[in-house]
């Protein structure tokens, strides 16, 4: 029996701590020892088995409601269960009947857990099997998104970039010859979710093996890697000779190799080179997604869906988005000729996106070597003056080409950045 004095604990709402979907057992040993789920409000819950009481016919568990950071820190083994239990302020002692029904719940402090039941320092998340699928959801959270609303232009940019990103990954699989198409599904609340279904067929008639090719797993690992680890791995992409590769990259590489081994498809000469090249190719598409973060919502959470159950992949916020954009620029310029203007020059641009608060945005500009092609550089306008009702906002709202004074950064004749001098 658990030596807990529940008289000192404050009863809690059962709705809040009950798992209503996405239930997954992380470790089973006679009982579900460690498990995950989501409550009816969409909060992530991490639970563990504490004890059974044969006399009272009850089972005691702990349910913690995790923030997104706590969740990903735990499942990615950055924090142990003990650390999570110590840090989270929303944890509950849960009393269940022997039929599994929740009877009572009490708010809990770590110190309330008897010492002999407290997890050890090395109580990291066990490896667990993920449920992959071709149903993707991008959950926007914070600011306007928390009102179940989103700016149409941002949603459109995200879904176009993510569709192109997904389709591009499948199209570029050498010798597998897939014809993918990403279909938009109805939006759903919580806070605002963009849903996509990825479908594909084989280019060359009947395909005997595609059913066995673990493409869902590969795309899942790809999204996870590009949205969590590529920033810290950027040197690996700047210097192709780098001998050290990260664990996260190696996981993705293993999933990539599996496509060919399990599908019995002719293998590329170098898996490593093929994957690196494709990652570099996909960076600008993912960058377009990161450029939407921070203005009208704070985060995007990527997940896979199986019916009502959600398999969370990763979450990006403004910090990761900015770091990602810096990493992409560093990777892109590493192999190319860069030039930066010493003095301000006149350029003709058309601003298609501008944040009046940060004075940053994007514009179209014709390339120097080929006037029929355009770059889409980031722009930043100097000064502190209001930019409403200036030529900059006129360009934005009236789709008008304007002349600005700017210092440009170019990579292989393509404009990457314009530092614009404010003019009234």
């Amino acid at each position, binding site marked *: 029996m658990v030596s807990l004095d529940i008289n000192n604990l404050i009863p809690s709402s059962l709705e809040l701590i009950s798992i209503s979907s996405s239930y997954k*057992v992380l*470790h*089973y*040993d*006679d*009982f579900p*020892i*460690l498990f995950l789920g989501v409550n009816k409000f969409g909060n992530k819950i991490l639970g*563990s*088995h*504490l*004890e*059974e009481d*044969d006399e009272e*016919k009850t*089972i005691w568990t702990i349910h913690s409601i995790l923030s997104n950071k706590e969740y990903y820190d735990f499942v990615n083994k950055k924090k142990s*269960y003990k650390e999570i239990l110590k840090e989270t302020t929303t944890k509950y002692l849960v009393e269940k009947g*022997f*039929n*599994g029904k929740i009877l009572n719940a009490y708010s809990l402090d770590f110190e309330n857990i008897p010492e*002999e*039941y*407290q*997890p*050890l320092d*090395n*109580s*990291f998340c*066990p*490896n*667990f*099997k993920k449920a992959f699928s071709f149903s993707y959801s991008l959950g926007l959270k914070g600011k306007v998104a928390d009102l179940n609303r989103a700016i149409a232009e941002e949603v459109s940019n995200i879904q176009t970039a993510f569709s192109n990103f997904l389709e591009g990954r499948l199209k570029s699989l050498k010798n597998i010859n897939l014809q993918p198409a990403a279909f938009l599904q109805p939006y759903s609340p919580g806070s605002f979710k963009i849903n996509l279904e990825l479908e594909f067929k084989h280019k060359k008639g009947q395909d005997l093996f595609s059913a066995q090719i673990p493409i869902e797993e590969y795309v899942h690992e790809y999204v996870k890697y590009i949205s969590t680890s590529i920033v810290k791995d950027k040197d690996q992409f700047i210097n192709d000779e780098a001998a050290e590769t990260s664990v996260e990259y190696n996981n993705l590489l293993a999933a990539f190799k599996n496509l060919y081994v399990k599908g019995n498809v002719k293998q590329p000469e170098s898996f490593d080179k093929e994957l690196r090249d494709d990652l570099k190719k996909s960076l600008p598409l993912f960058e377009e997604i990161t450029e939407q973060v921070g203005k009208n919502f704070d985060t995007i959470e990527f997940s896979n869906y199986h019916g009502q159950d959600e398999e969370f992949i990763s979450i990006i916020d403004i910090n990761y988005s900015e770091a990602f954009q810096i990493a992409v620029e560093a990777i892109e310029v590493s192999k190319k000729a860069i030039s930066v203007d010493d003095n301000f020059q006149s350029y003709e641009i058309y601003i298609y996106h501008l944040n009046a608060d940060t004075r940053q945005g994007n514009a179209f500009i014709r390339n120097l070597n080929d006037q029929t092609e355009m770059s889409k550089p980031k722009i930043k306008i100097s000064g502190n003056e209001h930019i409403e009702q200036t030529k900059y906002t006129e360009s934005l709202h009236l789709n008008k080409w304007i002349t600005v004074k700017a210092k440009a950064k170019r990579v292989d004749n393509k404009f990457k950045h314009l530092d614009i001098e404010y003019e009234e």
Partner: protein
Amino acid sequence: MTFDNITNGHDCDCLGKTIVPKPEEVFLRKLRKDVLADKDFETHWDRGIGVESEGCDDICNYKALSINKSSADIEKLIYEHYKTTFTINPKKGGHCLKFRFKENAGTVIHAPIENADSHYNFFKSDLFNFDYIEPVDVIKFA
């Protein structure tokens, strides 16, 4: 061997695909403490857990006992599984019993679970008691 305790009260075929364990086969079962006690070989059903279940998978699982079939090459892996339990809840995974079954103890079926391919379900015969197992060792993880 009779199994009235397993077959009574439902129409599920829990035993159809089970087999009699060989006398040389070694199994592991987690213990509550460092000595074998009656409760260590009680099934969930014996304790009243899940007795309201209606699906055959649930009923058969609740009427069986979780054990792991061991061998020299996977023994450490099984210990790792028990140790994981121990790190999450030290009260629940401190010890395990290494043992062999004697004749008429019951039947087993391979029932792999995540991270534990060696997992078996053991269905006790009506005669089962500790005389039907041969303890080999008690392993302590603490």
